[in-house]
């Protein structure tokens, strides 16, 4: 994945290839400092209770019984940040041997198994009973259960009961909810991932239309507003229970995953807005590929030959931090909004985006003023030195 980013970045930024070496080290140092600051800033914006790191290991799997503290060593040790994606990765680690072993067993055992009537032929299972197919559909099955569970969320909230009801509509026993160790958290994270991918599809469609010339390019502020409005409208069917979902996302073991989803969302929106940037040419934005897990880290990490000047590094982080702030605050407003069609929320969103745009232009003006003032001083100093004769070589 890194090589692809590198290749795409090299293609797009031919003009930035030759760089003086001296600035590389400084850029790296600044990058580190800014990364730390930006991360802290983001964490402050997102998590109100300031739970920065999932340090709470006692509630790892949501076991409340004190007796389970006896479980000092658990082979099925899930990382506390288990969500649908990391869960699957961990799952793969655990089941990799299972499936390679079972794959060899599955092929040999498929015929006698069919006779012994031990394996039921469910609808999604191949007639041949190949284990590879089954492995893929395990995750797909979980996704299907969670999708079915979304219907029951208004009734049961974001909880195991909704998942159980969803599983039952698929014809599975309610005991299959045991696969979801995170309970309601799994459901919320799945829903958010789904919303993010829907938004990405919509933005890609719009982007294609613009490229084909069928639609006009929007200004950045308008684009951002529309993107966030579209994204937040996806919550409308669940708005009654959305406070519960937000609180689930803020639980310590869910924070890494919710932050990851949030950062990919913001990154995607800026990616599709990147072409319509109103920035001055001094600040160049890298075209990060959408929805890759490491775009949250500075893009410089994968392309050291493309270091921008220090001022525009701040830009990448500031933009994303600003958009994260806007998104979260608008979400909070939406949850307690009772106006028709959430009109208050969209007005709030407009105002916030306006604020950010104003701040950006003000910052730029201040910067150019500051440069001019500094140049003025330097000129005065040189003149003074000339007058006093200090510049003469003896």
């Amino acid at each position: 994945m890194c090589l692809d980013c590198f290749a795409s970045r090299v293609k797009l930024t031919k003009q930035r290839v030759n760089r003086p070496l001296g600035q590389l080290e400084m850029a790296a140092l600044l990058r580190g400092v800014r990364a730390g600051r930006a991360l802290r800033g983001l964490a402050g914006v997102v998590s109100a209770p300031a739970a920065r790191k999932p340090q709470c290991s006692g509630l790892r799997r949501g076991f409340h019984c004190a007796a389970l503290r006896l479980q000092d060593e658990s082979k099925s040790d899930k990382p506390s940040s288990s969500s649908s994606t990391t869960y699957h990765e961990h799952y793969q680690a655990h089941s990799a041997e299972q499936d390679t072993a079972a794959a060899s067993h599955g092929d040999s055992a498929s015929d006698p198994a069919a006779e012994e009537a031990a394996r039921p032929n469910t609808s999604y299972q191949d007639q041949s009973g190949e284990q590879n197919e089954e492995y893929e559909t395990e995750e797909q099955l979980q996704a299907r259960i969670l999708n079915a569970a979304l219907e029951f969320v208004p009734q049961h909230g974001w909880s195991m009961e909704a998942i159980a009801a969803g599983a039952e509509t698929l014809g599975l026993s309610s005991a299959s909810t045991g696969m979801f160790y995170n309970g309601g958290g799994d459901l919320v994270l799945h829903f958010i991932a789904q919303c993010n991918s829907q938004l990405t599809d919509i933005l890609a469609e719009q982007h294609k239309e613009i490229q084909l010339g069928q639609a006009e390019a929007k200004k950045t502020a308008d684009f951002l507003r529309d993107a966030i409005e579209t994204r937040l409208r996806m919550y409308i069917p669940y708005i009654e229970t959305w406070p519960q979902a937000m609180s689930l996302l803020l639980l310590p073991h869910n924070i890494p995953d919710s932050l990851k989803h949030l950062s990919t969302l913001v990154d995607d929106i800026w990616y599709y807005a990147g072409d319509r940037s109103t920035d001055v040419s001094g600040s160049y934005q890298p075209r990060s590929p959408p929805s890759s897990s490491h775009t949250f880290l500075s893009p410089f990490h994968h392309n050291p030959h493309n270091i921008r000047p220090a001022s525009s590094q701040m830009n990448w982080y500031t933009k994303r931090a600003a958009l994260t702030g806007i998104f979260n605050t608008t979400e909070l407003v939406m949850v307690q909004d009772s106006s028709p069609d959430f009109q208050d929320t969209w007005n709030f969103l407009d105002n916030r985006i306006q604020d950010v745009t104003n701040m950006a232009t003000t910052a730029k003006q201040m910067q150019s003023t500051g440069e001019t003032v500094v140049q003025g001083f330097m000129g005065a100093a040189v003149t003074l030195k000339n007058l006093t004769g200090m510049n003469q070589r003896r």
Partner: protein
Amino acid sequence: MAVSMRQLVRRVIRLSNRNINVTAGGVSGRSGCCWGPSSCRCFSDRNTHFGFETVPEAEKAKRVYKVFENVAQKYDIMNDAMSLGIHRLWKDALLHVMNPQPGARLLDVAGGTGDISFRFLEYVRSQQERQKRRVARTMQTPSWQDISNSYSNEDKDGPQESKAVVCDINKEMLKVGKQKADSTGISAGLSWVVGDAEELPFDDDQFDIYTIAFGIRNVTHIDQALQEALRVLKPGGRFLCLEFSKVTNPVLARLYDTYSFQVIPVLGEVIAGDWKSYQYLVESIRKFPDQEEFKSMIEDAGFYCVQYYNLTGGVVALHSGFKL
């Protein structure tokens, strides 16, 4: 001519014995197979372990039956004494991992005195109460429409009832369990069935959850028991097994071994008056496969998402699998 006749006779006997072995395995212990054991011992090469002894497979089930027949009366007291009461925590952990939803049906195999089933019914009942309380809280100010709806929905609780079926091969253990149930007053939703784990007397796709707590090491053919579990579970059903396993920490392992072999049989003699049964118990724990091996056995039987949790440092392992 005589040689060929002798060979023919020998071949016939071998064939018939093989048939008897198969049926004896299937009927294990339910009826003392009359001429099976005597000729099996001569011609059968299928032995299994009974503690540290090696016995023919047909005999193991009978001897296990006798062990539990002897210990049935003092079973619960001995459990408390041997594990210092920690077995209750293990069973509670099983229930927490199971997290049964209201309306689930449980099959508790080798359930004997019914510990798991009682906990299951209590758990489900408290879940239902919690749900009712939650519904009541949100319906603090019901409109007339809501009230009339609730009148029509009053019979909804019927299909929501959860049932637990306790299945054990040993009638004495079931008797003790039934007495316990009667004395504590938990009898609604509970059934007691005599059955063999290798050949369950139930139809396919009947149960949501299948548990076997501290019983699977006594089964002669563990893979058959696992396949039966797969058969009677509904699609999406869960298999849970609580069993003694290998301790991971070497220091703890030494202590545990000393405790098992020196203290437990003595306790057995003092409290229940039966040294040999408890000697069998601790030996059978050593003979049982370890966590990873058992996990792969479960996977081989056809379960998915198989996982295990070590409790008390590996003394007990809780394995879980799904029928998908």
